[in-house]
């Protein structure tokens, strides 16, 4: 897999070259060039904002079709907590579990169950007092990638534990027979990227990522059939703690710390990270950050309105015990710990050599001072500043700015008008003397 695999991709035929996504991208990773949007892989964090805002549905998330599970002899499915908020008329977790088995999965392993183990591990690590405070959650892959690109200094505050999806897959893998395929039902493109291009480990234990929107209709019809026939004994694996991870604040509350903060929505997340970088949140113990509004229930591949889903999950949680999973013994199992370092990504610096960067920055300032500062986006960049950067980096030219171009045309017109043409007679006759 290439270093910059991304789930978020473009449907070129559907793209009309408008700048809606360009303006909304939190890392300024998109430009419109030759009438089509282009994503800079190095800067993209797969947050899915462009998918959310594209009026022409030209931004897609690459996921696996439901039929792809047929490749495997033994099929395990990992439903995330947020999936349980997607459907109406659900009394318990068992209906979705039964419906997933009916769709052909041999085993259902709730990600919420693994989340409870991650919560337990978090509490243990925080009690040991060896983590840098405030501790930042590592569960949202879009946020983790954002930190690697824009806030690399804060990597030393990130909780060095695998996300519940990964932990669930590893535990399922440990128990599974050969020829097992593990499919995660994903609410967002960032999780797909985290499977193909993992952080904190070399290779993900998840084989497939099927989107909620892909499985939604099939699962609904299976749920209806199961509801008629009865679902059998309750085999649900997770309690309130794990299920609450689907909403913003759930993970933070499960740390049992008093001073915690939970922010959701990518702009809010960036603001909180700015505060942390300025050392202005040092009174907090734990900071939970989710790129999507309301948390994973707000994932762009979900069907239900995030706040409706969150309310449903609250009702579902009421009938569950506090937690169903705890770490046995003293040590934190290796399945939960990171086994690879998460490094900064230098996608923002202009050049590896500071002297070169200084020179380029001077050129950027010079070009920016010539631009009109309207941030109109007609050049395909999100702002005049971004265009100046693109020009210096060799990705664009001053002619991309329609206002500069207009000035140029105006100058040409003026010089045309000022020309005093010699009115030589073209007939060829010699002038009379």
């Amino acid at each position, binding site marked *: 897999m290439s270093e910059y695999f991304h789930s978020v991709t473009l449907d070129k035929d559907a793209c009309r070259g408008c700048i809606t996504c360009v303006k909304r991208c939190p890392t300024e990773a998109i430009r419109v060039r030759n009438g089509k949007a282009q994503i800079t892989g190095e800067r993209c964090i797969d947050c899915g904002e462009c998918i959310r805002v594209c009026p022409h549905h030209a931004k897609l998330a690459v996921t696996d079709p439901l039929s792809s599970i047929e490749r495997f002899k033994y099929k395990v499915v990992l439903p995330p907590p947020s999936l349980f908020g997607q459907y109406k008329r659900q009394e318990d977790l068992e209906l979705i579990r039964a419906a997933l088995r009916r769709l052909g999965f041999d085993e259902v392993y709730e990600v919420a169950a693994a989340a409870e183990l991650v919560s337990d591990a978090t509490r243990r690590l925080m009690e040991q007092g060896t983590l840098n405070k405030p501790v930042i959650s590592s569960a949202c892959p879009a946020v983790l990638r954002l930190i690697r690109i*824009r806030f*690399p*200094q804060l990597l030393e505050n990130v909780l060095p534990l695998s996300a519940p999806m990964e932990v669930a897959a590893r535990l399922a893998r440990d128990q599974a027979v050969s020829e097992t395929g593990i499919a995660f039902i994903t609410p967002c493109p960032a999780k797909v990227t985290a499977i193909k291009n993992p952080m904190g480990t070399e290779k993900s234990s998840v084989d497939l990522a099927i989107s909620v929107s892909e499985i939604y209709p099939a699962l609904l019809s299976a749920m209806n059939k199961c509801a008629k026939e009865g679902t059998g004994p309750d085999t649900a694996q997770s309690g309130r703690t794990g299920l609450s991870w689907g909403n913003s604040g759930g993970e933070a509350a499960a740390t049992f710390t008093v001073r915690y903060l939970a922010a959701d929505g990518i702009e809010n997340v960036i603001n909180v990270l*700015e505060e942390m*970088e*300025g*050392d202005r949140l040092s009174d907090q113990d734990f900071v939970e950050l989710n790129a999507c509004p309301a948390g994973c229930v707000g994932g762009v591949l979900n069907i239900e309105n995030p706040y409706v889903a969150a309310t449903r999950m609250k009702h579902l949680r009421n009938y569950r015990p506090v937690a169903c999973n705890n770490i046995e013994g003293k040590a934190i199992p290796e399945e939960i710990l990171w086994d690879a370092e998460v490094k900064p990504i*230098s996608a*923002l*610096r*202009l*050049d*590896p050599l*500071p*002297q070169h*960067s*200084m020179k380029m*920055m*001077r050129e950027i*300032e*010079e070009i920016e*001072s010539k631009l009109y500062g309207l941030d109109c986006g007609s050049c395909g960049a999100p702002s005049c500043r971004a265009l100046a*950067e693109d020009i210096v980096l060799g990705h664009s030219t001053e002619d991309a700015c329609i206002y500069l171009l207009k000035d140029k045309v105006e100058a040409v017109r003026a010089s045309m008008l000022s020309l005093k043409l010699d009115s030589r007679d073209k007939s060829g006759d010699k002038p009379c003397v």
Partner: protein
Amino acid sequence: MSDMSGNSLHYHYIVPGDDFTQAGAASSAVKQILKQLGLNPQTIRKMSISLYEGEINMVIHAGGGEIDVDIDDKKIVAVLTDYGPGIEDVDLAMQAGWSTASEQVRGLGFGAGMGLPNMKKYSDELIINTTVGAGTKVTIVVNIEN
């Protein structure tokens, strides 16, 4: 805003007074530039924290002012100039927890008396020139280490 004289980068910012919604805008802009220059994260951190504190001080105590930032390959120098009341006792102002901020300002979460001490802590050099009744000029120097 900037000019291109010599081999350094120069930026000029105007800090509006008593506008807490915009407080921190200049230090945030400088931080972004330092990140693009690819400087050592520790250098960026030192400059952005001390400049933020200085900027907030201008808003709280001096009715705003101006900030000039010069960056060359050896150091970053920020000069914060205001025409506010000045500081009566600089030694006292440098003590952690000491502040003349109003109750209203404290209610907003500012004025904890950590501004100048933090600027001292995070900068490599801090020079304060102040005249009571005329204003204050604070110079923050952070050396660039790579």
